[in-house]
């Protein structure tokens, strides 16, 4: 089962690198914001996989909860900020 979690973590790591292309080269700020939101989801799952690999899930699950909340709040804040900037112009 450890081998399964290792392979799962490696696949997710590869997917994070693929999404990172859209974060770096994406045209405009909205594509970057969407890609960062997708990247946060993958990071949340990677944190839990690391917890299962180290047999310390009860510690990593709290970090994962905080990461999910911060990702949600950050995406909402970016969307609201860009909308307000547009209204001012």
């Amino acid at each position, binding site marked *: 089962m450890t081998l399964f979690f290792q392979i799962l973590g490696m696949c997710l790591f590869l*997917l994070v690198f693929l999404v990172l292309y859209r974060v770096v080269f994406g045209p405009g700020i909205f594509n970057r914001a*969407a890609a960062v939101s997708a990247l946060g989801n993958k990071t949340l799952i990677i944190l839990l996989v690391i917890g299962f690999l180290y047999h310390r899930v009860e510690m990593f699950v709290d970090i994962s909860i905080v990461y*999910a909340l911060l990702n*949600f709040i950050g995406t909402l804040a970016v969307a609201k900020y860009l909308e307000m900037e547009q209204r001012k112009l």
Partner: protein
Amino acid sequence: MIVTKILAVIFMLGGLFFFLTATIGILRFPDFFTRLHATGKGDTLAVFLFLIGFSLYEGFTLTSLKILFIAVFMVLAQPTATHALSRAGMRCGETILLHEEKKEEKKNDSSI
């Protein structure tokens, strides 16, 4: 006991598949709204499947209850965030790439 482990592995592989499709969508689609469509739905389902799988693998403990809490929260939060981002993009004038515009661009390129 072994049945729940096998079910957990099946759920995790399904989540990995949906993460892969969402990543291909965010890389290959031509437009902001189509990219958001791919990543919003695909990532929501993938995170949900992954967390259900982790919860089944963990068993009936407080940790699995916390993981289920994250799953319920993500199912509520991810569509909200996607909707807010798409509304902001609509009001800030992100362009929607229509099929006819693409054809016209091709015609212009050939005429030049």
